[in-house]
């Protein structure tokens, strides 16, 4: 019931648990323990996708993460759509629904396959050559065409409903890969008491041992031994074993990124589990035991469905109980083909022949095949294949012989070019690779990080060597991490030892037809040769020109063959041509894994003031200011923003308004040198400011440009309460700390952020004093005792307060600072006390209008990092007698004192109801040729209820000398005439400050 190609027994699948699944809408059955690939193969399905460029039919090639072809999309329902999953890694679960990719309308009949007929167009560099001319074609023809045809799979369009989580972890020894070398390394390290993390991309630890049928370790079958070791390790306190976890990236200082697939294999995952988890592991030492990847042979037609890697054929038979075909032809360059042949024979297949590139194959595996009666063709190359959606015939040719080929019927063609050590992670760690001539492979050379490689990724291919090298590496890593040494341990081992051997490049005699090197990117041997003929010499350039080894595959199966072909074409030795850089991720990582919990509510902290909830309950419309939510205006029913803001402004001018100013930055500056420090940090003079008084402070950066401003209260000779802009708060504190710690180190003064200690309620308007008077205790509010720009401490509503008399509206005003927990209660008390006077809450929009009417700047709106105090008309804030302050020296730089700088002015539109656009440019001559000379721009623009017309602030070149003149604001459909005026529109004498 679970497929005609399932063996009667054997494998690590659970035959008591059949699982129904769907592929391209077709229902099939597999077993628990299957991958999608093994289950499809058990059902006789090899064709699983179309290729990227030519839309050629493609089948399953591999049994692991190196699979280049079998990429599928899985829909788990409810927006849970994941493209580009490798069928070879996808564990079968109940109701798994997968679809093939790169095909339209169906896998069997694909319109894009016509690309195959036009393949000369798609040769190396086809993007660069084909889509060049004429220019107008790019936008309207080429780009839409490429965009619709290109890409692997399709991105999901719905929000991802799954949860993802990160985990930072630290260990003494991280072991990457849980094959024989990795398990031995973890055993050694764990024995010393080291903190160990062992990760492996497969569903269970064991690596190559999971497909082992003969070898025994320490008296037990290899797979059983692996399971036992993994269990024992996982049971230890200081060891973490992570299956389904891919080490995908190596970051500085031994920070390794691991992607754990937590729930995708489960039938009904608990929603409290994250779907995937990103581990960021800081490892003192790393043991890389990543194994090796079998190479395909490069021959014409090597991409037909049914053409597979030999070891994959063996793994499907031994681990999954699947016969990948009934009649196999095997083309090999080493022992792997023989081991596969024996495994397939055992699974019930017929072996038509083994074609071995070697002239005199020998050794245990060859002997065993001979004993089993398998026909062996030494010195024979695979010359080609035939078949439509499945291979039906393989042709063999004697190397160095005639052109005569032997044609053999088959339904599966297994190939092995030998094994390539998986040096990806070593290479990512910036270690230098060395070329091993005997193995014809790149191996880890000089280390750059604290790591060591062991086992097949280090060129050790025999089981005994892997175990010993792994154990030694694990022990050395633990020792290097300062954890002592384990007892020595020898792993008694019995069973066959495969001989290495391999072949790089296109097999001899490869002539016509497409011999693929990179299946995923559809790159052939001829493409690579063409690139070298066209002058490409660097392997990095060839890679980009042909796209070989790019994208999600990162050249796992293709790199070495590509390199050998290029080296051959250039007639240079392989190490001279070099290897392309391996980039992360080793296999694709989902955006969800990378984002982790940083979505929605947890994307960024959302900062609320102590009065936020009141505002929210009273219908405030909020705006984002940095991470803060600030109430922008408080519309009453039926009001739009314009009406609400006009009403709020009018109330402040006529009676009183209250405003939540809690987000203003606040810094308590304390110490005997506090005044001296402020003298140096602000342009103003502070030494003689009396305790109990406030002063406007202007902060420059060292280049002389306005950085921040705010009101500063002197509470005591050695204590100041500094306020900053909302957005500038962290930057101002950092700037102050910088100078305090590294320039003015002689000063005894300390800075403490008190932004969040206080809720700040601004009460502004002619009735402000009357409103708060009954609430205040211990403070004399009379104008004599508490004039404009003064501060007193006392109580309001029974709560300790720092009460400022200050105005950012031009009206009589107070700012009530109270400990934040009490903010809301005091706010409500003031509101209640002010009800009789017509007090209204107002938001940031009205605040902006009110201050603009008075010409008060907002740093970041009137300034942009290039505005000096003189530009902004703030010369008066500079302590002329001061010897030094940050930015002072720059104020006499030639550029700063030169004429022609933009200066702050007011604008009045000739038509009073016209509200200019902020950011609009100003020109002198409306009839000038385009491009016109722009001499200024609008920084703030509002409708002013108090004036019954629009007002604007602008920065204009030499603006103060142009007052009274008319300038123009060019808009797409018209010119707006404006008159330049002084930037104070309301109560120019400042009489209203006293109520």
């Amino acid at each position: 019931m679970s497929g005609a190609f399932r063996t009667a027994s054997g494998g690590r699948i659970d035959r008591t648990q059949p699982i129904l699944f769907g592929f391209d809408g077709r229902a099939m059955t597999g077993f628990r323990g299957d991958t999608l690939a093994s289950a499809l193969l058990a059902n006789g399905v090899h064709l699983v996708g179309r290729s990227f460029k030519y839309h050629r039919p493609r089948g399953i090639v591999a049994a692991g993460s190196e699979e280049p072809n079998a990429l599928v999309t899985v829909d788990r329902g409810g927006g849970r759509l994941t493209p580009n999953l490798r069928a070879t890694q996808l564990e079968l679960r109940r109701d798994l629904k997968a679809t093939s990719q790169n095909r339209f309308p169906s896998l069997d009949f694909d319109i894009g396959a016509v690309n195959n007929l036009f393949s000369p167009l798609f040769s190396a560099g086809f993007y660069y050559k084909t889509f060049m001319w004429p220019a107008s074609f790019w936008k309207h023809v080429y780009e839409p065409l490429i965009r619709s045809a290109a890409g692997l799979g399709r991105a999901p369009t719905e929000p991802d409903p799954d949860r993802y989580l990160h985990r930072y972890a630290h260990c003494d020894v991280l072991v990457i890969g849980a094959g024989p070398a990795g398990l031995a390394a973890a055993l050694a390290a764990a024995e010393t008491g080291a903190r160990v993390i062992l990760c492996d991309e497969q569903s269970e630890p064991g690596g190559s041992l999971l497909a082992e049928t003969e070898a025994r370790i320490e008296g037990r079958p290899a797979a059983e031994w692996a399971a036992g070791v993994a269990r024992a390790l996982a049971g230890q306190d200081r060891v973490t074993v992570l299956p389904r976890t891919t080490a995908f990236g190596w970051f500085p200082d031994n920070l390794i990124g691991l992607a754990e697939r937590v729930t995708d294999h489960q039938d009904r995952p608990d929603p409290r589990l994250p779907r995937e988890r990103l581990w960021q592991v800081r490892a003192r030492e790393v043991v890389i035991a990543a194994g090796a990847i079998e190479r395909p042979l490069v021959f014409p037609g090597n991409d037909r469905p049914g053409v597979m890697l030999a070891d994959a054929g063996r793994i499907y038979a031994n681990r999954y109980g699947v016969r990948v075909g009934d009649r196999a032809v095997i083309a090999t360059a080493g022992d792997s083909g023989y081991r596969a042949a024996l495994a397939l024979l055992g699974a019930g297949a017929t072996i038509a022949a083994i074609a071995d590139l070697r002239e005199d194959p020998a050794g245990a595996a060859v002997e065993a095949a001979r004993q089993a009666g398998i026909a062996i063709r030494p010195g024979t190359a695979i010359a080609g294949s035939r078949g439509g959606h499945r291979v039906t015939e393989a042709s063999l040719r004697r190397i160095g012989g005639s052109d005569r080929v032997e044609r053999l019927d088959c339904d599966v063609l297994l190939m092995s070019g030998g094994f390539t050590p998986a040096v990806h992670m070593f290479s990512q760690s910036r270690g230098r690779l060395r070329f091993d001539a005997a193995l014809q492979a790149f191996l880890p050379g000089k280390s750059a990080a604290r790591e060591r490689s062991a086992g097949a990724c280090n060129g050790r291919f025999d089981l005994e060597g892997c175990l010993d090298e792994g154990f030694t590496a694990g022990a050395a890593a633990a020792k290097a991490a300062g954890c002592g040494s384990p007892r020595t341990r020898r792993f008694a081992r019995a069973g066959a030892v495969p001989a290495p051997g391999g072949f790089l490049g296109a097999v001899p005699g490869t002539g016509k037809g497409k011999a693929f090197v990179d299946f995923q990117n559809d790159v052939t041997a001829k493409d690579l040769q063409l690139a070298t003929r066209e002058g490409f010499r660097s392997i990095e350039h060839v890679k980009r020109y042909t796209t070989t080894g790019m994208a999600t595959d990162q050249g796992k199966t293709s790199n070495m063959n590509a390199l050998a072909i290029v080296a051959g074409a250039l007639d240079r030795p392989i190490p001279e041509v070099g290897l392309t850089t391996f980039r992360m991720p080793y296999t694709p990582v989902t955006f969800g894994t990378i984002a982790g919990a940083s979505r929605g509510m947890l994307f960024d902290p959302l900062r609320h003031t102590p009065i936020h909830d009141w505002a929210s309950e009273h219908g405030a419309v909020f705006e984002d200011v940095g991470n803060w939510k600030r109430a922008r205006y408080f519309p009453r029913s039926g009001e739009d923003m314009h009406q609400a803001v006009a009403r709020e402004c009018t109330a402040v001018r006529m009676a009183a308004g209250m405003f939540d100013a809690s987000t203003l930055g606040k810094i308590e500056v304390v110490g005997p040198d506090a005044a001296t420090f402020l003298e140096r940090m602000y342009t103003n003079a502070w030494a003689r400011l009396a305790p109990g008084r406030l002063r406007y402070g202007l902060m420059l950066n060292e280049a002389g440009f306005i950085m921040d401003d705010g009101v500063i209260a002197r509470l005591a000779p050695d204590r100041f309460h500094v306020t900053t802009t909302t957005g500038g708060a962290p930057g101002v504190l950092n700037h102050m700390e910088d100078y305090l710690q590294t320039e003015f180190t002689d000063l005894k003064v300390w800075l403490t952020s008190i932004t969040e200690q206080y809720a700040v309620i601004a009460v502004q308007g002619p009735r402000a004093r009357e409103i708060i008077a009954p609430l205040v205790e211990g403070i004399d509010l009379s104008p004599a005792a508490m004039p404009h720009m003064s501060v007193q401490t006392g109580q309001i509503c029974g709560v300790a307060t720092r009460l400022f008399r200050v105005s950012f509206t031009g009206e009589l005003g107070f700012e009530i600072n109270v400990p934040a927990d009490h903010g809301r209660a005091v706010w409500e008390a003031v509101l209640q006390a002010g009800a009789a006077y017509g007090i209204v809450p107002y938001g940031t929009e009205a605040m902006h209008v009110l201050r603009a009417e008075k010409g008060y700047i907002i740093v970041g709106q009137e300034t942009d990092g290039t505005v000096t105090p003189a530009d902004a008309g703030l010369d008066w804030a500079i302590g002329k007698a001061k010897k030094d302050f940050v930015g002072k020296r720059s104020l006499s730089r030639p550029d700063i004192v030169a004429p022609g700088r933009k200066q702050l002015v007011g604008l009045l539109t000739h038509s009073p109801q016209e509200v200019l656009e902020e950011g609009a440019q100003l020109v002198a001559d409306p009839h000038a040729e385009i491009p016109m000379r722009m001499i200024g721009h609008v920084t703030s623009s509002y409708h002013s209820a108090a004036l019954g017309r629009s007002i604007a602030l602008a920065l204009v070149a030499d603006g103060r000398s142009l007052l009274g003149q008319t300038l123009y604001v060019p808009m797409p459909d018209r010119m707006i005439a404006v008159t330049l005026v002084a930037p104070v529109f309301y109560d120019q004498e400042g009489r209203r400050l006293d109520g």
Partner: protein
Amino acid sequence: MLLIPCPHCGARPENEFRNAGEAHIARPAEADDAAWADYLYMRTNPKGVFIERWRHIHGCGRFFNCVRHTVTDRIIATYKAGDPRPSLDVLRAWSEHAR
């Protein structure tokens, strides 16, 4: 994410720190326009050993100096703000070591 040894707190992950540009640039008490412009804007930007300032902003809050190799990104040493700049010989030796 680098592991940065704060001279006060020990090795901490990079996200607790903020870079603050080249170190040992003295603020001149007196400077002509050219010298002042140099102080404001000119930095060495070397390929190799570089001394820069970091602040352990989400830790102890201290600014400190850090010797880093700009090619390998390896941090060679850190020391407190105000401590003297390492000698050329020392830097040369560190440079060899970190390459």
